[in-house]
């Protein structure tokens, strides 16, 4: 079903790429400015939610299939935990990032670890938020449009 709101559709088409770029900016700039995986995940999810609100749920399901959300939910936690296990294998403690790089004075190992961990956070938060939205929006409401 196509929405009849032309202005909303045009504005959304401009805004959604910007929201996604901003989400990734917040994610990868999280070490230098406010931001990080949690915030970026929510911003990215809100881009998909905006798409679903304006172009309809079925279109959004084609862009971001619920299957991805289901897999991504688990994948993010897996990435996070596996960073911990990699640091164990490399001879450190669980989630001890200094073992990833010999340059301890500039904290390069810490930077690698933080980025890797935040990718896990981003994946889980984005996918859980989208999955929850799909779950609520996928139910057909009992209230018909005329009642509004």
């Amino acid at each position: 079903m196509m929405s009849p709101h032309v202005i909303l559709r045009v504005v959304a088409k401009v805004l959604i790429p910007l929201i996604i770029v901003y989400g990734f900016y917040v994610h990868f700039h999280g070490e230098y400015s406010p931001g990080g995986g949690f915030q970026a995940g929510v911003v990215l999810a809100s881009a998909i939610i905006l798409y679903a609100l304006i172009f309809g749920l079925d279109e959004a399901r084609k862009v971001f299939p619920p299957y991805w959300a289901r897999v991504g939910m688990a994948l993010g936690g897996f990435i996070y935990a596996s960073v911990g296990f990699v640091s164990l294998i490399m001879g450190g403690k669980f989630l001890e990032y200094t073992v990833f790089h010999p340059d301890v004075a500039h904290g390069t190992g810490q930077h690698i670890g933080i980025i890797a961990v935040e990718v896990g956070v981003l994946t889980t938060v984005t996918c859980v938020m989208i999955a929850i939205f799909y779950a609520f929006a996928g139910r057909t409401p009992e209230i018909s449009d005329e009642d509004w």
Partner: protein
Amino acid sequence: MLEVLAERFNYAVIIVLMMVGLYAVIATGNLVKRLVGLSIFQTSVFLLYISVSKVFGGAPPIFDYKDLAYDKLDPNAIYSNPLPHVLILTAIVVGVATLSVGLALVVRIREAYGSIEDDTLAEADYSLELEKGV
């Protein structure tokens, strides 16, 4: 007494906000409105933590990038306490996740009973038990 209150005025207001949330949870039978009250309560707890971490004259706990790179950080700079920020940041995201579980339960209750007012639910349960002959 008055000085104690004046130095902790924001905590007093946050307690009032918590009371507002608690009142909204108890005084309504509508389950969606109860969850709204619960999230007001939750936000007041967040505000309590964050206002404890505030230091007057302090800056947000983010260094200047160039100062950090060239090792010229001002040792006397005042920053607000970052630890409560970390705790609350994750608590907010977990809060919305648990809110969604609560809302999912409410949707299921509505589908099973046709209502989300708690006295209607109690009556439906009661008549169901009468039918069973408990």
